[in-house]
């Protein structure tokens, strides 16, 4: 009896621990989704007081929240494009070209990732102010800041992908009558694309999420994380959980659909 129980535990322990860890990781998200249906008794209530559709039907009810979300999405979008384009070019240069100061450049692109956000944020503010932008802090300074801190992540991600790319594939393409341009678009780019895509997604989520650097350089503008921070002082409106849930389900949808897409492609070619 004891032996059988021991065996059962032995067989399932990995599964069990795995489930517990998953539970631990997803608990906050369950709470966010749950609280998006909350009908709070008072402004400062953090408990589930009753079920309602109201929050989902009136997501923009809290004053300024939807403006903050829109601003964050706009900045996230532009920062993603800027950082991905620049970072990809940098990654190509760092991996493919032998130039003087290459290893130093490598270290310097890595450095911003390692330095504390609060330091970067405040020094950036000092820079903006001393450059005479003190009165015009806002959309553009936020965007510049976001592109800056996303850049390192893009470079590192794309570089990893590029370093794993066998240069002989490009040589084979050239050997098979593809000129430099065709080689890039037919062979190099498709093979590096997953890295670029990952870098873009990472950039967006970093930008959308950022509070510390943004807070220091935003002037009068309010991004979503700043709004949530401010609201938390007064009592979080349940609509914030709606936005949180939407973001989560959107991410989930993206992950699942890319998975399905890949499976289907694998099945078609099998």
């Amino acid at each position, binding site marked *: 009896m004891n032996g059988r129980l021991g065996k059962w535990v032995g067989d399932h322990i990995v599964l069990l621990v795995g489930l517990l860890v998953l539970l631990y990781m997803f608990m906050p998200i369950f709470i966010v989704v749950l609280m998006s249906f909350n009908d709070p008794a008072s402004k400062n209530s953090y408990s589930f007081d009753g079920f309602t559709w109201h929050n989902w039907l009136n997501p923009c009810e809290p004053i300024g929240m939807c403006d903050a979300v829109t601003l964050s999405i706009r900045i996230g979008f532009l920062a993603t494009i800027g950082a991905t384009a620049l970072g990809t070019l940098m990654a190509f240069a760092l991996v493919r070209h032998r130039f003087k100061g290459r290893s130093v450049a490598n270290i310097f692109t890595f450095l911003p990732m390692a330095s504390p956000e609060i330091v970067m944020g405040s020094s950036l503010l000092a820079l903006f102010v001393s450059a005479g932008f003190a009165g015009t802090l806002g959309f553009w300074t936020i965007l510049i800041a976001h592109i800056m801190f996303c850049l390192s992540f893009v470079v590192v991600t794309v570089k990893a992908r590029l370093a794993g790319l066998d240069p002989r*594939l490009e*040589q084979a393409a*050239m050997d*098979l009558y*593809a000129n430099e341009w*065709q080689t890039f678009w037919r062979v190099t780019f498709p*093979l590096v694309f997953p890295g670029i895509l990952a870098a873009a997604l990472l950039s967006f989520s970093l930008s959308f999420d950022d509070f510390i650097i943004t807070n220091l350089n935003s002037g009068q503008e309010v991004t979503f994380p700043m709004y949530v921070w401010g609201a938390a002082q007064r009592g979080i409106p349940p609509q914030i959980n709606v936005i949180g849930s939407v973001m989560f389900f959107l991410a989930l949808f993206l992950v699942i659909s890319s998975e399905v897409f890949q499976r289907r492609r694998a099945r078609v*070619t099998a």
Partner: protein
Amino acid sequence: MADSDAEDLVLTGVTKKFGTFKAVDDLDLTVPQGSFFALLGPSGCGKTTTLRMVAGLEELTAGAITLGPQDISYLKPYKRPVNTVFQSYALFPHMTIFENVAFGLRRQGKKDVKKQVEDMLELVELAQYGARKPTQLSGGQQQRVALARALINRPQVLLLDEPLGALDLKLRRAMQIELKRIQTEVGITFVHVTHDQEEAMTMADTVAVMNAGLIEQMGEPKELYEHPRTTFVANFLGQSNLIKAKVNGTDGDQIRAEIEGSTLRVPRDRAADDAAVRSGSVWVGIRPEKVFLAAGGTETSDGSNVLRRGRVTDVSFIGVSTQYLVRMPWGQELMVFEQNTGAREDFRVGDEVDLHWLPDHTFLLDADQDATAGVEREDLG
């Protein structure tokens, strides 16, 4: 350069340096149009580097490469009528097998791609695999895709960098025959790199033996085997007994060389170079399978080369033949391979034997060279 019509591939003084290291050193090579040319040599001798220079993937440090009347030394790879089967296949992982094979045709804007690709896949027996990705194929199948992808373009020169390396023996033999058949059929010049001497000899019209960035010797397989000009070739292609001897004169068109009181005769045209003969100190070479064994003191026919008073130190029976090691009075061990015809009892370890062989099978090499150059180690099989 021969007649101007021929689209021979000619390398003149081709040199490639990596830093200060010379991977290919002042190489001269002529590959006649339509021939099956094998480049044979040990690992690291510069075979791949040579091919890459012909393909345009590596820049020459010095020298020139011409194809027929055209100097292609500095042409971009995609402008050369040359295709490569890479040592590592280098199939495009994001494309199907069909698209991999179609790649070259599409870049050249050829018509009728579908039909041609299907025919080519048929030829390499991969017709049903067109829709798969390279990772879904076995190593041998990938190799055949790499071959199809290059061959479909009907280049003037096809470069094959150990294209059969990953195959098991049976498939390897089958592909060797297939490759040879394809080459004869399409009449394309094949430059085939390998370090498998048997493969080089069975397939090629001409074999060039390469060592440390240099061509040691070039010729028909039989010529190379029967008449090696360096100790490296003598040892790398098959096995050889090299016996140090002193030249002490000539008899008509035969050279006499002496070792420990025995006189060995070698036809003059089988001496690698006259300078060695004049200097007096030479290696007398004989292939182990050309040597006959006789019990010590047996009469031998006139005109044979004879070495007496050998003692058998090792006998290994390997089915079709028996391999003997015989220690000579001066301490050297010589190899003798005998067919198992059953005509005579095998010798045993300790028996005294005489070795004899025909002067026509003997060759002379310059004694300045290392007698062990190119000896294949056990682990290289």
